[in-house]
């Protein structure tokens, strides 16, 4: 029984990671309608930023904002160079960003080699909470992930719903043409949103890196999970990402506990496919009315 409870908690931690990883993607997809296939590589770059900071003795709390800035700038380059020409063709954006991802991955491989870098947790987060007398205990970093996930959701909520900028963003999402007529620079909004989303991916990479290591291919599975979070949770409403993240996070963890990781993944996938029969655009997505 204790084991089960620990797994439930772990699932929350995984959900936290998924929320952090998926938020950036969800914002970009929700506002601009494009999916960034290089999302995994963006996460990976964030992880390598953390690794570099770690090499120089800095702490993760320094790495996080640095990762945000670095990857946001990367996103800027990608958006201006590639994406801005193809907003009206979302499928093509998939392919083009896939290509971007490959290029980023090779560059990182060339610079850092294929072996990967270990990143250490800051002392503050080293260790775990003893919930039950016997191990496994609940690691501090999982708590950190959950807290960070909530923080990101709150900050994003604040930006979108309590600032002028957010108002413009929501206007563009509601009615792009009209917003343009009203003087909102929609191109600039798209760019800033893409940068923000990318930056969030960077943070995700920075806080995921210490779990195993920063390797050049670590981002891909998190990216695919992020896509699933969006598909299941939907991007029409703020609750989409946390709901999707929670369901997938808990689902995979518990099912993996009962069977194994691969079967767990499969079952979650099947569940998602069944779920979208009822919610074609995600649980909280804009639903078709038929």
């Amino acid at each position, binding site marked *: 029984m204790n084991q089960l409870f620990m797994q439930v908690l772990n699932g929350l931690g995984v959900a936290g990671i998924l929320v952090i990883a998926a938020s950036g993607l969800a914002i970009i*997809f929700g506002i601009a*309608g494009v*999916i960034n296939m290089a999302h995994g590589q963006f996460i990976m770059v964030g992880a390598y930023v953390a690794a570099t900071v770690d090499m120089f003795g800095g702490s993760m709390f320094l790495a996080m904002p640095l990762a945000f800035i670095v990857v946001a700038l990367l996103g800027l380059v990608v958006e201006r160079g*590639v994406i801005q*020409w*193809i907003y009206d063709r*979302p*499928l*093509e*954006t*998939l*392919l*083009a960003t*896939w*290509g*971007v*991802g*490959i*290029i980023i*991955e*090779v*560059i990182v491989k*060339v610079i850092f080699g294929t072996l990967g870098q270990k990143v250490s947790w800051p002392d503050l987060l080293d260790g775990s909470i003893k919930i039950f007398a016997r191990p496994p205990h609940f690691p501090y970093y999982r708590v950190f992930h959950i807290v960070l996930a909530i923080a990101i959701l709150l900050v994003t909520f604040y930006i979108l719903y309590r600032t002028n900028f957010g108002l413009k963003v929501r206007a563009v999402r509601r009615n792009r043409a009209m917003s343009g007529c009203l003087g909102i620079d929609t191109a600039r909004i798209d760019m800033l949103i893409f940068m923000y989303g990318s930056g969030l991916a960077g943070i995700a990479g920075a806080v995921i890196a210490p779990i195993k290591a920063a390797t050049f291919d670590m981002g891909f*599975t998190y990216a*695919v999970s992020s*896509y*699933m979070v*969006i*598909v299941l949770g939907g991007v029409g409403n703020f609750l989409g990402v946390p709901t999707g993240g929670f369901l997938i996070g808990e689902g995979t963890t518990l099912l993996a506990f009962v069977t*194994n*990781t*691969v079967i767990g*993944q*499969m079952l979650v*996938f099947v569940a*998602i*496919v*069944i779920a*979208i*029969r009822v919610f*074609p*655009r995600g649980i909280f997505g804009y639903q*078709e009315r038929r």
Partner: protein
Amino acid sequence: MAVTSSARSGPRQVRRSRLVPLWAMVLGALVLALIGTSPEYAGTDSYIVGLIGKFLCFAIFALAIDLIWGFTGILSLGQAVYFGIGAYFVALSMKLNYTLVNATRYGSNIPDFMEWNGLTEVPAFMTPLLSTPVAVACALLIPTLLAFIFGVITFKRHIYGVYCAVITLAESLILQDFIIEYQAYTGGFNGITDYGNLRGAPFLWVIVAVTVVCFVGARMLTHSRIGTVLKSIRDNDVRAEFMGYNVANYRIFVFCISAFMSALAGAMYAAWVGIVSFLDTGPMLSVEAVIWTAVGGRATIIGPFIGAFLIRGLEFMLSGSWFAEYWQIFMGALFIAVVLWIPDGIVGTIGAWVRKRQAGTRAQIREDADRLAHDRQRDWEPAGAAKPGEERV
């Protein structure tokens, strides 16, 4: 479909462009002869022959992608699932048969990867695969069935576009993980190796024949009315639905055909190459095939063939040189370039250029007329407008 109109009073005939234009047939026959007889002049065991067989399988796979993506607008980032399943069935079958005859170094007659994982005999559910017809049937029908189920689940609910792409990507990844995990049955990370192969002149002719059938079949399909319906779904599925077409059914139909073709390609691939691994089912192969089609020319029949041969051939030729390390960067850049600058691919761009030359004069006249009208509009002013310098009352 070319249409000619004679004088006003005469009846209008529909002149269908011939199924395969004459020059294409001649050229195609030449190419096929070249390919088919390559074992003669290059040597049966030569690397080139091996590549040609492989590339032909890839070309069929690329055509399968072209049917759903170029013609119908469905982007699947996981078609390799069907390719891979077809390949694995055939490889398993051949492996089981091979180890019956050639014992492993430990003396047993079961595949090595089963042995390594502690199995003492071939699992019961796998023994039917010893029979080649059963294996081939499984290799072709099971992927098609899977595609049908997938199609019914997703297309009937109008899930397409980005959502479909992402879901197929996940599907592909999960299959890959599944294969790696259950290595006792699938050979896991190493794949299934060492089961002999059918590389050689006779089987090459089989592959060539299948390629021709697939291409001719695809051309017949896309030039028929169904082809136009599929294109209309690609261009405007809402309109198509409002014109009475059950869009979901058409999508399922073409998706199953594509899966069947992919499985066929995969099955022949496994038999020819002699190795299959999880890479043959994963997202990397799927997306690569999309790029072959995009580069060659989507919504054409020859395009996928050219794209696959070109890119894979290029990769082979450059593999020994200094460029090899940067091949991936080249691929990534190719993705971007194709999307941004050459959306029609090679064949598409050539075709458009040819058509433009043919229509040249007419187009030019029309362009001039348009420009004249446009300029006239721009100079238009409302009757009461103040001229610059005049006072506004």
